[in-house]
């Protein structure tokens, strides 16, 4: 079966080609079927590989030699091991569900064919990212998903703000990619190779805290902050909600944003040997988790709440990586993929029913009208809040247990963030599904449960959100943590370096108790405020006090504009206006304006112009001579 691995990315790519070329010719049902079948096919192959794979060593499937230059050889090859298999299952599995869902969700859209072409292309690049056997193939996937995300965020491009959001996402991502690319170059010059199977054994022999390793890992982490929306590069993700909702679910919740975590988990040995980087990751992750949770508390757009919650959950994953809980972080990737995809698709279903209304202040009381959506979303919310035995409980508690052992202060802050999570998620549920309907009569008339193609994925994901956690039941609760054992070949070298969790069961019970108790209290507070008192946030209240700070996203966008964009614009404007326009053209045009009036001698203008050019050149030559002979 493993020989067929090349089919996994190829199928979506074929789907992309068919849909891309035939988007105006093929009928809509056929397009949807082709696109979905392509991803389902990949899922089937992934599943069979998952069931048959039992090698302890990663299997590298060499396709062809891609770049050969000097001693550096970069093959186009795929690497199959436990880590990539888990990612494959997530991408193709959730991808399939979202394709099916989209067939219903996008059925009224004129760009139906284009949408599925992009979606297939995205899956293709994402698969390249996780299957690549070296950093360069990974980088291709990395850039490719960024590109597809850009195309999909700007899918409804007739709205100018959406197109801007797309550009913002791409450019923020590119800033992160800068780090990743430099990291890869540094890896090449350090290890002389880019293949995982060659780098990691070499790295394992290095000393912990090696300066080069620290630099490499920091650069890689910068790449991860861009793609996985961490401080300070996270602001693109909430804006990315401009895309169609299935896109938000697939790309901006379940798959692409986890690429950074996958990359760090893949390079675990490099990070395990760089304790400094790990500490940085932990702090950044924690800050992101709490800041995003704080912002989510006052957002009124249902998708924005989910977006910030995604940023916050990603923060938890990084926190987990930072304290060395690689399995825990990856576990959270899996469970988060289930419940966050579910929540986004549920939100999509709500938006669909509300005729594209996204503001929660205009919703309310929807639980009777949309029973399936309501129930499934409730499951998702409980899962993300972390109540047992739903999926989020196990993964989040595993991370927090590691954090507790690592540093108590980090744990307290993290725990606080977890309470905030429960609060804002239930706030969203209460505002949307409880109380009275606050929309227009027209919307009320239109309210309907979504078609089967949309509710079916919701139900599947809801089941996964309930049972997904059981793959990692801790020993304290009588489980044997199947995921930990499954991933152990990938993490073997790291586990030799980083200490395993050594909490006794009593402490673990206490930790679980505290977090579950706090979560329940948060939910009750939210219930009292939003259901019993029927509170609905109003614009002017959001603009006062601490809510103002939260509602305006801590003014981070404005901050970035002030400290990055403005100077860059100013510099560019300076070059354009002063050097190009005022300096050269200005001089000339000034001369020209006067002389055109007086005489028609354009000759004067040109000699003046070239004179300046030559003058500048002479200055340049003098500078070069001085620099060559005197300074050096």
């Amino acid at each position: 079966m493993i020989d067929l691995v090349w089919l996994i990315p190829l199928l979506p790519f074929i789907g992309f080609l068919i849909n891309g070329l035939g988007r105006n010719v093929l009928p809509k049902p056929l397009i949807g079927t082709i696109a979905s079948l392509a991803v389902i096919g990949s899922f089937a192959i992934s599943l069979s590989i998952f069931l048959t794979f039992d090698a302890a060593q990663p299997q590298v499937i060499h396709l062809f030699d891609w770049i050969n230059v000097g001693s550096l050889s970069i093959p186009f090859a795929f690497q199959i091991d436990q880590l990539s298999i888990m990612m494959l299952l997530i991408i193709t599995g959730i991808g399939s569900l979202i394709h099916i869902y989209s067939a219903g969700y996008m059925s009224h859209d004129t760009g139906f064919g284009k949408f599925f072409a992009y979606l297939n292309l995205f899956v293709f690049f994402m698969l390249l990212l996780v299957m690549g056997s070296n950093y360069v193939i990974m980088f291709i996937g990395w850039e490719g998903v960024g590109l597809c995300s850009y195309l999909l965020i700007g899918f409804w491009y007739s709205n100018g703000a959406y197109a801007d959001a797309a550009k913002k996402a791409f450019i923020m991502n590119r800033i992160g990619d800068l780090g990743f690319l430099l990291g890869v170059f540094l890896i090449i010059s350090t290890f002389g190779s880019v293949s995982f199977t060659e780098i990691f054994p070499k790295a394992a022999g290095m000393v912990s805290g090696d300066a080069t390793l620290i630099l490499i890992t920091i650069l890689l982490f910068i790449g991860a902050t861009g793609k996985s929306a961490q401080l300070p590069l996270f602001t693109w993700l909430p804006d990315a909600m401009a895309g169609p909702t299935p896109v938000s679910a697939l790309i901006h919740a379940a798959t692409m944003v986890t690429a950074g975590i996958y990359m760090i988990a893949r390079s675990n040995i490099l990070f395990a040997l760089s304790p400094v980087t790990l500490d940085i990751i932990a702090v950044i992750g924690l800050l992101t988790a709490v800041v995003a949770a704080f912002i989510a508390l006052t957002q009124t757009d249902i998708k924005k709440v989910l977006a910030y919650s995604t940023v916050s959950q990603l923060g938890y994953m990084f926190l987990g990586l930072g304290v060395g809980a690689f399995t825990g972080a990856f576990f959270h990737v899996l469970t988060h993929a289930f419940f966050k995809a579910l929540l986004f698709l549920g939100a999509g279903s709500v938006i669909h029913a509300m005729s594209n209304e996204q503001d929660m202040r205009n919703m309310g009381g929807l639980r009777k009208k949309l029973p399936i959506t309501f129930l499934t979303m409730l499951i998702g919310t409980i899962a993300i809040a972390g109540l047992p035995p739903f999926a989020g409980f196990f993964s989040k508690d595993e991370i927090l247990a590691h954090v507790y052992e690592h540093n108590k202060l980090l744990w307290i802050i993290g725990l606080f963030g977890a309470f905030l999570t429960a609060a804002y998620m239930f706030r969203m549920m209460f505002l949307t599904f409880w109380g009275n309907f606050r929309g227009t009569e027209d919307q009320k008339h239109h309210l309907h449960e979504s078609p089967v193609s949309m509710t079916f994925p919701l139900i599947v994901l809801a089941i996964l959100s309930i049972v997904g956690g059981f793959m990692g039941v801790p020993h304290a609760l009588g489980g044997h943590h199947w995921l930990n054992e499954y991933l152990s070949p990938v993490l073997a070298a790291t586990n030799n370096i980083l200490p395993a969790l050594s909490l006794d069961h009593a402490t673990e019970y206490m930790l679980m108790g505290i977090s579950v108790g706090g979560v329940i209290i948060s939910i009750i507070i939210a219930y009292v405020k939003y259901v019993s008192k029927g509170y609905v946030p109003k614009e002017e209240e959001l603009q006062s006090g601490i809510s103002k700070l939260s509602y305006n996203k801590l003014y981070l966008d404005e901050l970035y504009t002030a400290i990055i964009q403005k100077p860059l614009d100013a510099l560019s404007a300076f070059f354009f206006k002063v050097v190009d326009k005022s300096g050269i053209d200005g001089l000339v045009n000034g001369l020209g304006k006067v002389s055109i009036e007086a005489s028609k001698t354009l000759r004067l203008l040109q000699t003046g112009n070239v004179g300046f050019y030559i003058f500048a050149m002479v200055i340049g030559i003098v500078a070069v001579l001085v620099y060559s002979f005197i300074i050096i």
Partner: protein
Amino acid sequence: MSTLIVISILAIVVLYLGLFKAKQALLPISVLGLVAALALAIMEWNSNAAPIFSGMMHFDNFAVAFSSICIITTILVFLLSKNYFEKISDNVAEYYTLILFALSGIIVMVSYHNLSMLFVGLEIMSVSLYILAGIKRKDFASNEAALKYFLMGAFSTGFLLFGIALIYGASKSFDLAVIAQYVIDRPTGIDPIFYVGLVLMIVGLCFKVGAAPFHFWTPDVYEGAPTLITAFMSTVVKIAGFAAFLRLFSICFAPLQDFWMPTLLVITILTLFVGNITALYQTNFKRMLAFSSISHAGYMLFAIVALGAASTNAIFIYAAAYAVSSITAFAVLMLVKAKTGSENFEDFNGLAKSNPFLAFALTVAMLSFAGIPLTAGFIGKFFVFNAALAQYHTWLVAIAVVNAIIGVFYYFKVIVAMYFKDNQTKQIATPAYFNFVLGVSLIITLVLGIYPSFITNLF
């Protein structure tokens, strides 16, 4: 060698065809002649040719590779010229002839083995270009471009010549092999005028490739010259400039790297920033391409700064990627300009709806310029950066990557205009020749991006 003869004769034949009113035959004969020249060039691959004409020229693999890429690009430019020159001038045959003469100069520039031949080749090319830039006789911008180019070109050629003279004065020879031997024989105690000559040659060559601070002519000349000539200048001429630059430095001056490297390093960084940052603010697509060509010159200078075994390969691949993308960009620009009459970014609005193929080809070209993976541009940047890293210029690479990201801003402006902005324009009719050129460029860009192995190991 026979390539040079074929191209020179071809130029005269085409001139006479124009004289005897055989206008229909101009394009087919030019293209066929160039294909023949290309075939002759490729046949000399790996023939281990010795220097010919008393050591004046040396048609080695380096020369074959760069001749081929220049000839292929010229063929693409010619294919775009169907019905183009007729519109702007009566003297169509002269266009073809001058381009062919420029190309023969370029062949000399990539295969010289003697500094006097470098100068002769450079002048054959430059003089042809001065005329080509001003060939729209009634157009002020074109006249201005020609005059500026001529004055500044002559000025910089003076420096180049002065440099050659000083190097001759020190080493007593024009021959590259002798100069190289002169450098090797004297680990210390090279005549100081040799160094001065070296710096002056850097100045002259930097002008020809449009590196800052000697780039001032580029935007004005590129904007003023007829678009097709701009396409020729920014691709073939630039590649030839780099080939000549690299040939000189790798054969003669490699042992003196410690001396010239810091200077060139500063020039490279300056070029990158000036090109990219100024391009950021342009609203005119053609002017943007001019500034972007400055920044690409910066990337190619990289490989010379980090002169080593991999440099030739790196520049070759970068040049190939850059050439095909530029041709695509200029081809689409010509079509758009013919339709709307101007060449601003807004003119590309809604192109994806009216002409999906044009928009797609231009998108791939822009992605390649920006260095996105799976396009040729990424491979080019990868090789150039890798060459630089092999010499431990880590900071240089960091600066370059920052610049590559700035580049994304303005390259994406076009993509955004084409895909995300609406405009009720009618479809632009694309001639078959254009579709052919765009298709070929597209295929080359993607094939090089996905499977570069077949040209990465040429050297």
